[in-house]
């Protein structure tokens, strides 16, 4: 099956700093999504991005499908950005495969 790897596994930032999170996947995928899981466990979809670039406020994402990776950019980080960021891919079977996540902590 498709393997999904995320890096870094852990990240600590000072408020206001920028960061880049990476998701590598081992095979072609039909779609890719980024999720944020807040400290209370709620998962929220950030981006549906099987290819190309999207931006939403301080967050943006880029997927290069031909090279099998996606990047999530967080600019001017805030303490509310803390939590775990997951990417999830669907290889065409509707069984979304989640990466192990990047745990982000933003310090005030």
């Amino acid at each position, binding site marked *: 099956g498709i393997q999904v790897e995320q890096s870094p596994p852990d990240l600590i930032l000072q408020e206001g700093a920028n960061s880049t999170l990476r998701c590598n996947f081992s095979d072609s995928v039909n779609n890719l999504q980024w999720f944020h899981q807040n400290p209370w466990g709620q998962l929220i979809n950030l981006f549906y991005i099987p290819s190309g670039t999207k931006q939403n406020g301080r967050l943006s994402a880029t997927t290069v499908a031909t090279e099998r990776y996606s990047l999530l950019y967080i600019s001017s980080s805030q303490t509310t950005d803390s939590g775990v960021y997951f990417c999830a891919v669907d290889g065409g079977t509707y*069984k979304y495969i989640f990466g192990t996540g990047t745990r982000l902590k933003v310090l005030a």
Partner: protein
Amino acid sequence: GAGVSQSPSNKVTEKGKDVELRCDPISGHTALYWYRQSLGQGLEFLIYFQGNSAPDKSGLPSDRFSAERTGGSVSTLTIQRTQQEDSAVYLCASSLVATIQSSTDTQYFGPGTRLTVL
């Protein structure tokens, strides 16, 4: 309600007992997913329902796990003869359709049920 709801939010049970976890998807969503998240880990796919089609049960870890979806809406995940390794957060998600092709079709997650098996 507007979102996916799950009940109970917490469940503590003794090893060997059966448990039932409930998921109410967003009204009109035809696809429903169950995932399991062990402490500090990513999400593990368990089962997927699409409309009235037969569910994809390929992610269920053992025959002690089963799930049903009545009337294309509410779903129940049942774990029989619970074991300590079943302790985890069980998450349910729904989406408008299974073939997610745009951001409007994305998966919406419930708050989860935290299961603790003593």
